[in-house]
């Protein structure tokens, strides 16, 4: 543990000028739930910690049918979980938030922090990926937008420059007849990191129609969260039968190259990808055709209570 100096930014501009001044010796924190753990473990050793928790305007979450969901980077995972519009229109995202550690961590951890830490297993990320989230990045020369699936470069690595900040996440409104689901596979429910996490989204052309959009995102099976593009391709525009869903699930399974670690072997992870891809697609299809589950039911299918 290396001692650090602590400062708080009150505006985005102030945070960026601190980042410019301190460069690589600085680290941004918000909820600090990941930071304090890794600092105590000696993994992160910044000389300057810049807390952005009190930056005005980044804690808002709003929805409009035209622009969709706008999530300030400082919105907590708990707020995401409890937000009525997120539960109704982005059910996989609300359930993913509920699968994220304990309430005491969710009350602190921010959506922006979960994205910027760029863990392959970050629980909010697969759901955000299937909804087509985009990131608003602010730097000294203004803002730029990056699609979330272009945001990650490796474990803990993102496209953010040292003087840039993730300010907002925008999630387009899902079309009518869209269903979504996330399943976190973890031996200890919400309290452990996902061994594998899978989110799926299906939009139908009318309630009985062919699929107009299919997206599948996988966590903890690659250096970053990833989309299963070839499996999606097999389903897009098709009438979705059990056999076709199974074939896509097999393609997702065969397309990943996970690693062995303490939470599971590569072979185990591959199998779980196949199973969870099928299950999340089936639930997404059912919700697209018959309307979403209520939050409690969706949560039950996403994660078991920890005891």
């Amino acid at each position, binding site marked *: 543990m290396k001692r*650090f100096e602590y400062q708080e930014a009150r505006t985005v501009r102030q945070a960026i000028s601190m980042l410019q001044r301190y460069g690589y010796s600085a680290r941004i924190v918000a909820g*600090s739930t990941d930071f304090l*753990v890794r600092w105590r473990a000696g993994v992160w050793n910044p000389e300057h910690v810049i807390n952005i928790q009190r930056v005005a305007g980044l804690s808002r979450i709003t929805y409009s049918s035209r622009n969709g969901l706008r999530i300030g980077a400082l919105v907590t995972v708990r707020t995401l979980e409890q937000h009525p519009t997120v539960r109704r229109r982005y059910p996989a995202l609300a359930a993913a938030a509920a699968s994220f550690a304990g*309430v005491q961590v969710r*009350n602190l951890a921010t959506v922006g922090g979960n994205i910027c830490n760029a863990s392959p297993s970050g629980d909010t990320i697969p759901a955000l990926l299937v909804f087509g989230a985009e990131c608003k990045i602010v730097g000294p020369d203004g803002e730029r937008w990056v699609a979330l699936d272009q945001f990650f470069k490796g474990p803990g690595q993102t496209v953010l420059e040292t003087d840039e900040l993730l300010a907002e996440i925008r999630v387009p409104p899902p079309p009518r007849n869209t269903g979504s689901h996330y399943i976190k596979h973890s031996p200890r429910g919400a309290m452990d990191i996902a061994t594998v996490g899978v989110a799926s989204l299906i939009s139908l052309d009318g309630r009985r129609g062919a699929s107009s959009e299919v997206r599948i995102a996988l966590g903890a099976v690659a250096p970053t969260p990833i989309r299963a593009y070839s499996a999606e391709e097999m389903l897009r525009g098709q009438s979705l039968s059990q056999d076709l869903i199974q074939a896509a699930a097999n393609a997702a399974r065969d397309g990943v190259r996970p690693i062995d670690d303490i939470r599971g072997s590569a072979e185990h992870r591959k199998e779980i990808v196949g199973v969870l891809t099928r299950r999340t697609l089936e639930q997404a299809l059912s919700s697209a055709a018959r309307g979403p589950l209520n939050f409690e039911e969706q949560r039950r299918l996403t994660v078991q209570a920890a005891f």
Partner: protein
Amino acid sequence: MKKQLKITVNGEARQVLVEPYYSLLDTLRDELHLTGTKKGCDEGDCGACTVLLNGNPVCSCLVLAHAAHDGEVTTIEGVANGLELHPVQQSFVEHGGLQCGYCTPGIILSTVGFLESGEEPTEENIKHALGGNLCRCTGYSKVIESVLVAVKATGKWAE
């Protein structure tokens, strides 16, 4: 360099000089000598250090002390009303919701936070609300039973 921290703990305004890297937990225990809040894992897994920060349960080991500046904290020392136990505490005593007691302050604070949150106190919601609190003695059935009784005692039973 130590900086002044202003914080309201159990209704009392406090000022204390704290290092920038101190957690809220270490501040409560080592600077304010409120040792009812326990340190278990110091990494957000066990929930023993749970306190209410501005009304919400948080792991105080994961909060930078200065991030709680101007905040309101409730610890286990502030839950009872003088010598009269809070209904949640009373219920844990009467229904065997604890054995060694190390995890208990955190579980009590999580429960109090949950009952104040307005969430419907179903057994399933209670289990999710307490999922971040580990107990290595009782198992959890006595804990859940104690909470369910407290729910009835506080009138926070929606059904």
